[in-house]
């Protein structure tokens, strides 16, 4: 049977060689921003996943930070440096915490969901700030990462980290895309539309929200560990409310129409900020605010809505 290839999956697959070529062609500072953007873009993707189910999480930094600290502490205290193992540990910790916390969070919707998420992330921030063993507000540095026994140094380490980040980010985006097109993903959208009908069709909206919360946590945790690997340092600011706000900003800027949107949006945000600081060092926040204002007023579906690739309600 001749099956039509999924354009999003094809695009994500095609993006990998493009990103790898860019990694070698672009100056180091830009490659670094690209790498960090892919990491934070995953946290924004986690926010987007929840927005597709009608939930806004203002505390996604909780799991971004947990993932980063899981990787960081494993390297710093246990001497574990393999990127895949760090990734796995970040996922395990994020899933374990979100599974337990999810029993509480999944009971709430709208502003209560958003604020409860925010409160939880600020609790983690408060705990980390007071944890002197973890460097308090300064955080701590990570040892050099290894990749399945390969232990690069210097420029090779940066390049390996970049390649690893690209592969993981695109693989996660592809998996999320598959999920969104699955029955479970569709039911997530149905929960946003009408929980009562979902319940009377025989499914549990709370279970669906709980599951989405855990999946989002795992994705943000992976983003966090990739950020730690990219920067080589973790600190409590990863859980601070402004970090979480940035993920929501990216999701709104880029839109929820496609899994690639938050990854692109994260890079756009970084670039807007870089140039805003460059040309207007004292009013760059105003420029960011202006961009958000324009998006909300003229492109409420985010930048991705410009592509018009996703027809309204286009699950199928």
């Amino acid at each position, binding site marked *: 049977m001749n099956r039509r290839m999924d354009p999003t999956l094809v695009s994500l697959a095609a993006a990998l060689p493009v990103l790898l070529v860019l990694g070698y062609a672009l100056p180091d500072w830009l490659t670094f921003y690209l790498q960090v953007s892919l990491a934070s873009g995953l946290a924004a993707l986690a926010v987007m996943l929840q927005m597709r189910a009608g939930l806004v999480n203002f505390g996604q930094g909780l799991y971004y930070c947990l993932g980063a600290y899981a990787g960081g502490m494993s390297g710093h205290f246990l001497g574990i440096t393999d990127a895949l193992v760090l990734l796995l540990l970040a996922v395990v910790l994020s899933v374990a915490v979100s599974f337990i916390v999810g029993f509480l969070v999944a009971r709430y919707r709208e502003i209560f969901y958003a604020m409860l998420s925010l409160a939880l992330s600020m609790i983690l921030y408060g705990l980390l700030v007071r944890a002197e063993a973890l460097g308090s507000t300064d955080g701590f540095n990570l040892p050099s990462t290894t990749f399945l026994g390969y232990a690069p140094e210097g420029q090779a380490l940066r390049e390996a980290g970049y390649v690893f980040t690209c592969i993981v980010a695109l693989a996660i985006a592809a998996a999320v895309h*598959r*999920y969104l*097109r*699955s*029955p*479970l*993903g*569709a*039911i997530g*959208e*149905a929960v946003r*539309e*009408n929980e*009562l*009908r*979902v*319940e*009377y*069709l*025989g*499914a*549990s909206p709370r279970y669906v929200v709980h599951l989405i919360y855990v999946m989002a946590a795992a994705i943000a945790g992976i983003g966090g560990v990739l950020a730690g690997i990219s920067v080589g340092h973790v600190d409590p600011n990863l859980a601070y409310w402004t970090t979480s706000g940035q993920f929501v900003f990216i999701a709104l800027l880029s839109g929820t129409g496609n899994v690639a949107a938050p990854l692109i949006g994260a890079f756009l945000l970084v670039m807007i900020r870089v140039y805003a600081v460059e040309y207007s060092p004292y009013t760059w926040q105003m420029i960011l605010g202006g961009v958000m204002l324009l998006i909300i007023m003229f492109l409420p579906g985010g930048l991705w809505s410009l592509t018009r690739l996703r027809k*309204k*309600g*286009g*699950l*199928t």
Partner: protein
Amino acid sequence: MTAILRSEGLHKRFGAVSAATDVNLSVEEGEIVALIGANGAGKTSYVNMVTGYLRPDAGRIRLGETDLVGMKPRQVTRAGICRSFQVAQIFGELTVLENVLIALAIARGGASSGWRGLSRPEWISASEEVLEQFQLAEHRDATAGTLAQGVRKLLDIAMATVASPRLMMLDEPTSGISVDEKFAVMDTLMSALRQRGVTVLFVEHDMEIVERYARRVAAFYDGRIIADGDAAEVLVDPDVRQYVVGGELHRRGGQGGGE
């Protein structure tokens, strides 16, 4: 004929208001039963108790041998009772096909699948069959929220039938539908439900609809069933004529709203 639904001694109070007082109602397999009564008489409360939205203060509700009291709505659905609502409960931003596909995915246990696609050929053809039965095929790719009220009602009921219920409870299937459309909508949905062999219990204020489609009528008044039997007999019962049916529907105190 065997009773598939048995409600015995149901009581439900909301503070000083009694929504159900010793309600006893059995529904035989294959019956089409109408629940009539003024607003606040206890019809929707009864439907809500059977479908798990409300828990009765006392009494038993059984579907076959299954005790339904204490079950969540989704568990009642899985047990074999589905329902529609006074206001159609659909997924407004999704297409008609997607609405039915989601219902099908849940009904077939595919809701736990986060990897295989929703748009499986076998699911699409099954959904299209449902759309045909409910005369919704022409709206297949329309966004559900843009549909006319009557079409939304049909979609709401079509989605509920996908789970292959033994008993379907329709809460005012013609409310909000124009006089011109109501018989067409009822013909379509009754024909589709008959094809599927579903027992039907519907709440209705419109006596023309009741007379035309119900074989049996249960009349509610003040949380009690004051008459239950053959439609032709119940509709001429003196108590029913006094409290429920007159020249037009009797509404105590002119109060509106659900019960």
